[in-house]
């Protein structure tokens, strides 16, 4: 049976898991002062149902968990690109909450993905760059990414492998200096990308996170073996370098890049504008392209360093960025929105639940036509 004390303990545990102070929780839940939270956590105040809803939103937790009716799932490690300084747990909790909702929509609509992302054996202390590059080559073939992998990576991971990819404009205040994150859990694989970044940087981040997702179980085991709770193992920095090498190799295949460069080899040089266009064509930054060309020995590393410091190159590159940047992506991937609409049209969920899943106030967006339920359920025979 749920009582004040159970609720008090659950709220405190959920708050502490996110690293919030009582003051932070009071602010995020819209309470006038921290005394309310303090009283609730000491079991000295009866919580109203609407207050519980405010708290569950701020804590990114289901009300059933706060009521003690559902067991809180054990903490899941979210891997952040480039360290974790300055973060509290809100982005991680939000990512996991959204991924669980996504999985719930898949289940309601009977639309699980055709394939699951594999889990590769990987020992971080023994891996080499060569083995990571081989892994990238293999995955380009497994995922059938073709000659320009960036063009299809997002769709392939989202639609074929059911990777749940969300976007947020990440900020230094909340997210430290991280630019992306990923996690595997009961909901499958999920990735958070920075909506404020350039599309080519997001492509690289996604490829980087893919490395972590396909080596997830092995790395988790090694992490538990090599690091104390709450700390990073010594090899974490090297793991991040491996993930970058994987991303560069996946997005810039030696063969297709080689064909392009060999065609220009007889001229003995390549123009700045061609380099920039090549980077846009492969959906990567000019920096990533130049480093890769140096790695493949098409350009000397000193030349790369000089080009990257040349103001003329920087100006030309910036101009190209303006043309190709495009709009920032929405928080939710298209597949998530499609499933939410389907669940509503089939009357599996109502308007309020739809608004909750879209994280928008009801009445602030046009509802899909509710008169389509019968049409949505009409079947035809497959030959």
């Amino acid at each position, binding site marked *: 049976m749920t009582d004040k004390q159970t609720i008090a303990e659950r709220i405190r545990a959920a708050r502490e898991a996110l690293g919030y102070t009582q003051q932070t929780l009071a602010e995020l839940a819209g309470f006038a002062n921290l005394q309310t939270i303090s009283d609730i956590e000491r079991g000295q105040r009866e919580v*109203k149902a609407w207050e519980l809803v405010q708290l569950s939103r701020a804590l990114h937790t289901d009300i059933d968990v706060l009521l003690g009716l559902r067991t809180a799932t054990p903490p899941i490690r979210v891997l952040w690109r480039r360290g974790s300084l300055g973060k509290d747990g809100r982005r991680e909790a939000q990512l996991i909450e959204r991924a669980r909702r996504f999985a719930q929509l898949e289940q309601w609509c009977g639309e699980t993905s055709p394939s699951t992302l594999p889990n590769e054996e990987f020992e971080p202390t023994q891996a080499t760059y060569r083995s990571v590059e081989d892994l990238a080559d293999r995955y380009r073939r497994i995922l059938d990414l073709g000659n320009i992998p960036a063009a299809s990576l997002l769709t392939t991971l989202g639609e074929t492998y059911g990777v749940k990819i969300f976007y947020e404009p990440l900020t230094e205040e909340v997210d430290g200096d991280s630019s992306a994150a990923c996690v595997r859990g009961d909901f499958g694989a999920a990735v958070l990308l920075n909506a404020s970044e350039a599309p080519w940087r997001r492509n690289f981040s996604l490829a980087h996170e893919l490395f972590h997702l396909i080596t997830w179980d092995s790395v988790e085991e090694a992490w538990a073996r090599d690091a104390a709770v709450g700390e990073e193992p010594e090899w974490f920095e090297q793991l991040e370098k491996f993930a970058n090498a994987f991303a560069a190799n996946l997005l810039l295949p030696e063969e297709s890049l080689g064909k392009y460069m060999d065609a220009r080899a007889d001229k003995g040089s390549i123009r700045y504008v061609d380099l920039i266009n090549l980077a846009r064509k492969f959906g990567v930054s000019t920096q990533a392209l130049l480093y890769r060309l140096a790695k493949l020995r098409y350009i000397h590393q000193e030349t790369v360093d000089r080009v990257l410091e040349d103001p003329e190159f920087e100006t030309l590159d910036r101009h190209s960025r303006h043309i190709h940047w495009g709009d920032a992506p929405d928080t939710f991937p298209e597949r998530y929105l499609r499933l939410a609409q389907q669940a509503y049209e089939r009357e599996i969920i*109502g308007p309020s639940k739809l608004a909750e899943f879209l994280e928008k106030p009801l009445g602030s967006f046009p509802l899909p036509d509710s008169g389509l339920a019968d049409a949505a359920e009409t079947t035809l025979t497959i030959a």
Partner: protein
Amino acid sequence: MRRKPRLLLLDAGAVIGAFACEGWDQLCKSYHIVVPTIVIGEARFYHDSVGNQRPIGLDHHIESGLIERFEASATELATTIALLHPYIRDRLHAGELEALTYLRLLEEKSGIGFISADGAAIQATYAFDAARCALSLAEALKRCGITKALERKYCEEFVRKHLAEGERLLVQGLLRVDY
């Protein structure tokens, strides 16, 4: 003076529908309207007949005594949720669960009706022996003398479909955990 029949607006969709079809004032004249606190917080905007977004502002109606607010405690809400089968529970919004708590706590259900724009919420009322109180917005307005062509989720056909589904779930043991 005859007392007005009670009418529970079970979810924000019901409130929004009443405003959008310009039936709100008439409903308030003809019924004693009850709205759960969470639903009040959710029902903030509606789109008028020409598509403009307009504020609802139910707090003002409560302050003036025009409608009644129902405020459940978290422990009362917990009892409601604990009785529901996960199959139906996961599809319900917290505002609907608070409304179901109101129906659960009512000892006498003969003098009350409820409106919902959510099929799952209508189905769930079977769990608390309140399905017979279901009304469509169209029917509630008709009883006040207003006939309007409304969206499917506000019509009798929608209510009947989900009552039938709720009955089926009850029989299959997918509504309450103790059945």
